[in-house]
């Protein structure tokens, strides 16, 4: 177990990729705080963790809210006393052509996807800094690189996360904290289902060089690697996990 004794916070940890990451971190020995707007689902993930003998804690949190993120940090420290790994996964995926896009949709997309990275990183870095180590891992997206029709706000937020990660990596490297992103390819999760038929979706998901349909669990491996000591000299990077569908 590579992460024994570590404490991890996973935002957006109630479902999809975030849930798979939370369960993966737990399997490697970390205690896991599952933060999500959907508190019931977050508690369900914590039950799954405890069924496997892993300590977890669910927090209802809107990562775009300063007081909510403060509460998330407080509860993490009260319950587990430290933070080693922050996974910024919380995000919204809202569709609209730019010419019809409401300011509300734009603001919500940017504040949850990008602002959540800022608020959560800011809340946990002082503690990581004190202990001289930490891992911040943000879930960006392949869409940051290749865009997606009618998802301009989402594409902008995800590309901005990569810029944020690179800048933050330079700020906190001297404190032994690494900051990286992974860019998942299109995966078999609830998110794209809101906008595509099942048939369209599966054909699209299979259309990559390895011919594999990415499942949420497929992203846990690279995250666990980045969270481990083995990746202590990797920082400021955005790693594509996409079956070769896009290469940067």
């Amino acid at each position, binding site marked *: 177990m590579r992460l024994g004794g570590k404490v991890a916070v996973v935002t957006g940890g109630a479902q999809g990729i975030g849930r798979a990451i939370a369960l993966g971190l737990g399997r490697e020995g970390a205690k896991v705080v599952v933060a999500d707007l959907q508190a019931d689902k977050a508690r369900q993930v914590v039950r799954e963790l405890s069924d496997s003998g892993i300590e977890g804690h669910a927090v209802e949190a809107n990562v775009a809210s300063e007081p909510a993120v403060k509460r998330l940090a407080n509860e993490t420290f009260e319950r587990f006393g430290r933070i080693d790994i922050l996974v910024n996964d919380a995000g919204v995926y809202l569709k609209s052509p730019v010419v019809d896009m409401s300011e509300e949709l734009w603001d919500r997309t940017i504040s949850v996807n990008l602002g959540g990275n800022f608020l959560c990183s800011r809340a946990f870095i002082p503690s990581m800094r004190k202990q001289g180590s930490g891992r911040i891992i943000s879930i960006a997206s392949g869409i940051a690189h290749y865009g997606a029709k009618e998802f301009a706000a989402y594409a902008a937020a995800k590309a901005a996360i990569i810029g944020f990660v690179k800048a933050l990596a330079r700020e906190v490297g001297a404190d032994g904290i690494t900051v990286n992103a992974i860019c998942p390819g299109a995966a078999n999760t609830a998110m794209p289902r809101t906008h595509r038929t099942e048939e369209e979706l599966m054909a699209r998901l299979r259309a990559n060089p390895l011919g594999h349909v990415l499942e949420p669990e497929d992203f846990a491996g690279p995250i666990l690697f980045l969270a481990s000591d083995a990746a202590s000299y990797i*920082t400021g*990077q955005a*790693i594509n996990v996409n*079956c070769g569908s896009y290469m940067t």
Partner: protein
Amino acid sequence: MNQVALITGGGGGIGGAVARRMAAAGITVIVADFDHGAAEKVRGEIAGAGGKADALSVDVTQAREVKALVTDVKQRFGRIDVLANIAGGSFYTKRIEELTWAEWQEVIDVNLKGTFLMCREVAPHMQRQKSGHIINTASNYGVTGSALRTPYSAAKAGIVAFGKTLAQELAPDGIRVNTVAPGPTDTPRVMDKESSEARRQRWSHIPMGRTGKPEDLAEVFFFLTTPESAWITGQTLHVNGGLI
């Protein structure tokens, strides 16, 4: 099933660390190097630690030698699961007008052509196995360039594009191709040329506050052979403490 890894430049700083890391995971390692003594030394270290290894000589710029090496490995070990192309070097720091055609060719051949020749020879075996991992070695200089190292920077950038292309060609056979791009790394070859104080000053702007160790690279090469990286192909992993 016992996995077999073929590592070129396996006698060098990074190559030796990669060979030791893979052997520690139970992989049988073939340490291939131009310098047979260096390869033999790494083989001895691995054997001493209870691992399985062999040392073989190869000049990766010579198609006949590459063919003989791969044929030999295939015959004796039956399979090749991992090919790590680490042989390379920059050799010269010269302005372009001072660089001879022979020098240019030497650097391009050791880095880029050697990678091509090794991949061309090993890929058919992996295609028959329907599995395999190829990991090539680029450099931060392949992205940023580096004054007085035109052929090295060009070759390393070439390796990145070559790897992306080969990843697309070999994906249907379940073979992954990725590239590791080290930043400044503390290998004997570079440490011999520069005092550690001068080196520390030159790289003081690295965000993580230190230059890389061969072991940092070895972990990433190893990761790219594990199921955890199963859905990563055609990518370049920069291991440079945040330098770029």
